[in-house]
């Protein structure tokens, strides 16, 4: 078993869990701001008000009684996603990519009948997938048709881009690609691949799976080293403007590149994980400190992005 030392980590400016919780989340995030990000429905409504792009909402199921209305709400839609408004860690997200008669096809090409969808919705409402088991509401969203340029870097799931925003400045970013091991989910601790993205130019830096550097996707065998994300400035703009919406000092914005709409906000996370440091092979803390040391305040989104790109270019 290999270990590193605290002094090495400190030298590289690595952010640890305790420091994240006390120095950044605890200091910059007011608790009363959490509900907006913890509830995806609220996030979506707030984003729409500010004219930001989000996946379109097909319907909301709020009570067990309403589960009967599911068929009517779905109508003829063939591709959709059902998810809990307050789910965490990608739990309880059901993705339907096609419909064949009475059967619904999941991403994994497994078939599901309508009873199955009803049951899943009912589980969401009873709080099975939600923080603390609280009763929840189920959101039905249109399926995102993600940029086909990225499809070779993912297995059975939508690749999303996580950008860490500190006081409105984009400080670090990575793309999260699902794998067979992560069961189509984009969570790194479940085995998804994290690809560090350069803040200045939007190209890939390093790829890691289970904390180790890898060269290519374990399922699709595609090399990660020459990815260049399209619309990178738009991604940063969308992510950074969430600061004005949420007022949170430290959060992660999850963004997906839609074929037609361009970058859309999937969800926000007030407690983003630390694995992003591995995908970038650099420490978050030194970047956060750099932002703390800036004297300029109340800059526009564009100015902030410019500054960040200048500071954090690899």
């Amino acid at each position, binding site marked *: *078993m*290999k*270990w*590193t*030392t*605290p002094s*090495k*980590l400190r030298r*590289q400016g*690595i952010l*640890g*869990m*305790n*420091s994240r919780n*006390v*120095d950044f989340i605890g200091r910059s995030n007011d608790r009363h701001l959490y509900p907006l990000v913890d509830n995806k429905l609220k996030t979506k409504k707030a984003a729409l008000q500010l004219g930001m792009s989000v996946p379109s909402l097909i319907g909301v199921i709020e009570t*067990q009684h309403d589960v009967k209305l599911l068929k009517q709400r779905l109508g003829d839609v063939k591709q959709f996603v059902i998810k809990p408004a307050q789910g965490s*860690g990608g*739990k309880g997200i059901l993705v339907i990519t096609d419909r064949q008669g009475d059967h619904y096809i999941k991403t994994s090409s497994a078939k599901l009948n309508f009873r199955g969808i009803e*049951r899943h919705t*009912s*589980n969401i409402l*009873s*709080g*099975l*997938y939600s923080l603390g*088991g609280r009763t929840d509401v189920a959101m039905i969203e249109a399926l995102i048709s993600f940029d086909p340029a990225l499809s070779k870097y993912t297995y059975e799931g939508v690749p999303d881009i996580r950008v860490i925003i500190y006081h409105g400045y984009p400080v670090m970013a990575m793309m999260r690609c699902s794998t067979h091991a992560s069961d189509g989910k984009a969570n790194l601790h*479940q085995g998804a691949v994290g690809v560090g993205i350069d803040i200045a130019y939007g190209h890939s830096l390093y790829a890691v799976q289970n*904390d*180790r*550097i890898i060269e290519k996707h374990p399922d699709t065998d595609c090399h990660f080293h020459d990815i260049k994300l399209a619309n990178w400035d738009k991604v940063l703009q969308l992510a950074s403007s969430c600061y004005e919406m949420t007022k949170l000092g430290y959060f992660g914005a999850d963004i997906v590149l839609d074929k037609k709409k361009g970058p859309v906000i999937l969800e926000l996370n007030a407690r983003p994980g630390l694995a992003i*440091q*591995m995908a970038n*092979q*650099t*420490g978050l803390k030194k970047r956060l400190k750099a932002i703390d040391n800036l004297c300029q305040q109340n800059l526009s989104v564009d100015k902030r992005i410019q500054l960040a790109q200048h500071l954090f270019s690899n």
Partner: protein
Amino acid sequence: MKISPRLQISLVTGILITFGLALTLYKNIELGFPLSPGQQQTVWKVESKISFEPIDGPVNISMALPQAQAGWQLFNEHFASSGFSFIVQDKQGVRQAEWARRSLNQKTTLHYKFEIYQSNTIDLENIPAPNIITPELTPDRLTAMKSVVSSLKQHSNSPVSFTQNLLEKLLLDDIGQNASFLLANKENSKLSVIMDILAFANVPHHTVKGIFLEDGRRRQTIDTLIEIHDGKHWHIFNPSSGEKGLPENFFIWQRGAGSILNVMGGKDSRLEFALVKNTLPLKTILFLEQHVQEQLLLDFSIYSLPVEQQGVFKGLLLIPVGALVVVLLRVLVGIRTAGTFMPILIALAFVQTTLLTGLFIFLLVVGIGLWIRYYLSYLNLLLVARITAVVIVVILLMATLSIVSYKLDLDQLLTVTFLPIIILAWTIERMSILWEEEGGHEVLIQGSGSLFAATLSYLLMSAELVKHLTFNFPELMISLLGFVLLLGRYTGYRLVELHRFRYLGRPDE
């Protein structure tokens, strides 16, 4: 002026830690309270209840108080006597408590509490033999007495063997014509017949009154032993078993003639005892003996509570220690546990079940529970109904386990009842969701993390020193509070992060 949180934390934790430690040191240095547990000593808490029904006129109750004998030490006496005038006075070397009241119109109970422990076993003092008062008997009883005594004397050569023979004979079913004639008279109890026979045979003797100490007894009464003098030494006998020698668990209240309780102006008086056994460090007892009445600080300590509440606090005061272990493991080491304080509750259950049995039962119940919960998830139930179903299943499991283990004589497994049902049910629910969502790997990590934390907490909580310190120095909890607040501001790396980030760092660096 606004004080920054950082400074506030330093100030508050500094004050808390210093205050707790200072109080502890004060108790240790100034009051002589021992820091280490040292030798343990069994202490009996005796609560005497004198109950009686008053008749017209003034009421006067006097009770001979026990004297410390045969190595027993008596301390921490309390009298409860509301509405009575009360004094303790010396009467011919015996302390006597006296309660008096002009009039009384209802059944009343007076209380006298004290604590005793046997510091060493020494023989009773060799007091001079009393004069023998030959009983006056009717002619027919005299004849029977003479023949009983002469037949006993044929088989014995000393006062000791005489007494032994006498007691053994009276224990038999067939005690002979003459002896049964002596016992037949209802006015004479067996004890007074024995005394008469001893007097007639010219054996100096007296009674020894006291209590047989049995833990948890609520209505124990005074028992009487007989002591005879063989010309040189005293020998004690238990008339109800015929055995020679002072029984180990017998606390002598009064040695020699005289009554313990005298009630004037009352009827149906009873003297009963409630007994509780307790194990305390010897140093603590010695200390309490000397100081319990003197110190204000002690008067407000846990020792001033009734015995049962003291027992509850003994357990409660250990919880912060367990919590500290969980905080340390989570903040400094980074071990993941299922729920923050579940490990403490499991550790508390382990205190009752012992570690290995507890671990075994826990794994068994949670394992079977998970299996059943797996089936329940097929049935597609609402959350509340499902958790309730798991609770019921867990109770059934525990009942089955208890019955089976009882039938198989595996008494240890009976302690399953100490595991908190809600915690078990909740663990099963959490673990099964974790299993579905994150896979068996995560269940293993969090499950073993919780059990590891629980085991560590248990080991710490069951250490004699920890028990002693938490119970005798509850103010250490204030220091603990300060330390935990300090831990709450710890922003350094966790131990697991040193492993997690091991590959970090650019190859060229």
